[in-house]
């Protein structure tokens, strides 16, 4: 090992995180930056999986994507094609991408391009569709497909034209540092960051040359979507954590993701390998008429935000959503972030949290600390209905299964020649 101790290696890993300079550069069709999507292929969230193991909403997303891409004319056709293995499934993480919930991303869907200028690592994420019936929760009716087409034809190009007018792209660190002081934790709550994004992009939308009707549609869409920034945050976190993962030593978590069947983690010293365990089902609050019995098991790449140190790790930053973690009010949020700090090795002073006495957000989840204490990261998450098409039915928190960390620790022992 090039470092004297694992602790020293871990310091080098988090150095990559704090030194990152993510910029939102562009919005482009996925296939233009992810060559694997040329042909009948779909990205999905979490570690690699197969059709038969996907939860129903993720399958629904696949059907929607097949319809959107024109691979099939009907739901039945699409279903058959997917069951027959005519479509290749790729874990988004393996192609520098991430996607929320099902994470299903196809060739012609627009993706944001975020580059960490400190490392030139780029990462991609599809655009947030808003709430209600949306593809990421497994809906694929006409409204969903129409919206996807509009995003491809209008929203994506409009944002691309706007972003290109900003010299060097949009500085995400600045936006995030502001938004965390405004009550966002960037997973459950992105309202401040989304508003700041809109504020920053509007002047360029106006001069982007799109029609007045399109301008009206785009600004309305962005203004109505409290979570639009989530997908930008995810691509940002992916570009940063992939940079951290270039350090091939240490015991710091570089990715957290779930596919509705398995929760997978990656660790700095353990290369590209996923360490998996069966996912938990989230605890949370449900919309009227739904309960935990209707919930689909945990899924989505959005937990990359927690790997980066925000989301559930930074619960204390977002007083507006703390009641998802319990009824104890704000102190529960403080306790949650304090507990998360136990398994991290530092605080990220780029992300100071006013409601946490200006401590920086959690930085660097150390799998050794997780196994030692049994404290596993808490993920803030949306909850999908277990039947595709019903969309989101609630929101809450879920824990990463301890088994992921135990397996990774065994692998770490092997890597460093520790025998017991």
């Amino acid at each position, binding site marked *: *090992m090039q470092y004297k*101790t*694992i602790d020293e290696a871990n310091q080098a890993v988090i150095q990559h995180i704090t030194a990152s300079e993510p910029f939102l550069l562009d919005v482009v069709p996925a296939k233009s930056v992810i060559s694997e999507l040329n042909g009948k292929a779909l990205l999905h969230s979490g570690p690699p999986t197969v059709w038969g193991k996907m939860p129903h909403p993720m399958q629904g997303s696949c059907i929607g994507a097949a319809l959107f891409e024109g691979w099939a004319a009907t739901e039945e056709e699409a279903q058959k094609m997917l069951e027959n293995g005519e479509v290749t499934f790729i874990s988004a993480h393996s192609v520098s991408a991430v996607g929320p919930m099902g994470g299903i991303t196809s060739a012609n869907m627009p993706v944001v391009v975020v580059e960490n200028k400190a490392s030139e690592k780029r990462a991609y994420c599809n655009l947030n569709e808003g*709430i*209600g019936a949306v593809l990421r929760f497994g809906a694929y009716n006409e409204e969903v497909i129409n919206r996807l087409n509009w995003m491809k034809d209008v929203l994506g190009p409009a944002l691309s034209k706007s972003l290109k007018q900003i010299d060097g792209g949009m500085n995400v660190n600045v936006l995030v540092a502001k938004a965390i002081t405004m009550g966002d934790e960037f997973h459950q709550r992105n309202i401040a960051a989304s508003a700041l994004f809109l504020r920053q992009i509007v002047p360029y939308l106006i001069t982007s040359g799109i029609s007045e009707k399109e301008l009206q549609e785009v600004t309305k869409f962005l203004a109505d979507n409290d979570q639009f920034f989530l997908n930008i945050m995810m691509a940002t976190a992916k570009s940063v954590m992939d940079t951290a993962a270039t350090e091939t030593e240490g*015991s710091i978590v570089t990715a957290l993701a779930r596919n509705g069947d398995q929760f997978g983690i990656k660790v700095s010293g353990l290369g590209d390998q996923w360490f998996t365990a069966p996912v938990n089902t989230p605890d949370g*609050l*449900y*919309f*009227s*008429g739904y309960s935990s019995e209707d919930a689909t098991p945990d899924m989505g790449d959005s937990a990359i935000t927690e790997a980066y140190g925000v989301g559930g790790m930074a619960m204390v930053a977002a007083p*507006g*959503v703390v*009641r*998802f973690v319990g*009824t*104890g*009010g*704000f*102190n*529960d949020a*403080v*306790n949650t972030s*304090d*507990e998360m*700090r*136990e398994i991290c090795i530092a605080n990220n002073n780029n992300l100071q949290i006013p409601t946490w006495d200006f401590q920086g957000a959690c930085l660097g989840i150390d799998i*050794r*600390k997780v*196994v*030692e*204490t*049994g*404290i596993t990261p808490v993920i803030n998450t949306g909850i999908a209905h277990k039947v595709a098409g019903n969309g989101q039915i*609630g*929101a809450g928190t879920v824990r990463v299964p301890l088994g992921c960390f*135990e397996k990774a*620790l*065994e692998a*770490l*022992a092997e890597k*460093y020649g*520790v025998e*017991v």
Partner: protein
Amino acid sequence: MLHTVIKKNLYQDSVSLMLLTNHLSAMDGVERISVMMGTPSNKDIMKGSGLYTDELEAASPNDLCVVAETENVDRVIEELEDFLNNQSAASEATAYSTVRTWEMAGNKLPNADLALISIAGEHAAAEANKALDRDLNVFLFSDNVSIEDELQLKQRAAEKGLMVMGPDCGTGILNGVPIAFANVIEKGNIGVVGASGTGIQEVTTIIGRNGGGVSHAIGTGGRDLALEIGALTTIQGLRVLDADPETDVIVYISKPPAPEVREKVVEVFKTLSKPVVSIFMGDKPKEQHDNVHYAWTLEDTALKALELAQTSNTSADSILADNEDLKKIKENKDQRFIKGYYCGGTLALEAAMILEDAFNLDPDAAHPEGMMLQHGEHEVIDLGDDAYTQGRAHPMIDPTFRVEKVKEAIANPKTAVLLLDNVIGYGAHDDMAGVFAPVVEKGKKEAAEQGRAIIAIASVTGTAQDPQVYQDQVDKLEAAGVIVTESNAQATKLAAAIIDSLEGEEAAETKAEKTAVADLTKASELISDKPRVINVGLTGFADTVQENGGQVVQYQWAPIAGGDKRLAAILDKLSKL
């Protein structure tokens, strides 16, 4: 049937709405209920769930909409109002932090100086070692720790200047803060070292009930006097208390020790500068020797300690520690004498008596002209003697002559200590302190200008009810730089101690050398202030520390890796790569 309630322009965020839905749907008589803001997409959801009513048509996105299938809509509305008005969550912050790792405990209490460990014995030694890693003293309440582990911990602690109290240490008092099972005892000048929890409790409570106080009580654990351990903690505890300025008398409580160890401990007693009251339970008390007293019962021990504590003069050490004047006087080799000018005859006699004893002088047979003591340049004079009151009033009423004598004494380059009394009450001068304070202040200033210093010591004979008011007189004198003691005897003993310390430097150093056999820096720091505790285990102990003014962080300990020994071993080895 379906009832619709629309609250115009009452915005609630989605979290509130979900909590509200949960709350209302749990009510008796509510079959189904939906609570949402009246946005188009929410209206669609209501349609989907069969809870749509025509009244919703008119609702705007800023209106709170409730549709309920219930017989008693009024109660639902009542609950709704109630919920909306009482949303402030029950926020209960504890007075101290709770953590789950040593690292976080260190972050929360970076200047911690004690780990109080009460977890299961099989894990206790490992955690105690982690505490020592972090340079923390250890109070090991846990039992079932092997004697090998105990020895390893105590030896390691000693190398680091730290102290391990225990294992199986039931009680302790550190600077007034009860540790584990302990009583609330007034702070005082009796320090206790003990290998017996209830023994310490019995002795300290008897001291407390009889008007005394305890500086610290240091438990050692019952096996400390076993041959294998060799009284490691006992000896540390004795030395720490000997060096502690707040402790004047040391009590030692022991179960029957190994004879060799007993001898070793008694040898340590003799090196201490303070009186020791010792009880070796079961042993018939021996004759007093050197500074060591022996007792038979716990009560005898407490009472003997009280007696010694009341007459002890070692509080001089604390008064004189870091005294700048004393350092300066030391430099002027001629300045070695006490000048005592009294208005009270018996007080002057007492002062003379104490100084004669301290300096091993034969008492003067006669006291011409109130000269109670005259030896070299030392003098104690009763200015109320007839020789000085002819033609003027008694010095208790007219301070003029005494003022002259004081000025002379301060100007005298051989004077080190000025000793005064101040007798107040009806008939006495109405502000004696007000007369002498400026004289002393000016005198000290003038001496300073000549490169000298002088120490003035006084006592005030009087009470709070006297017209001059005891505390007012004390305050005035202290403001002028006078050291005011509780009694004339204490004032005189202090004066003698000063002269001793000026003359007996070499002798004192020898004793200090003998005592400074081990580094006890961190153990001494522990008792120099209220303890700052990382409490590993029983929460109740953290509460006690908190309530008694100590700082504490609760370490909610759990076995490493949930008790998985293989994973724990991996973690251990990885940390040592």
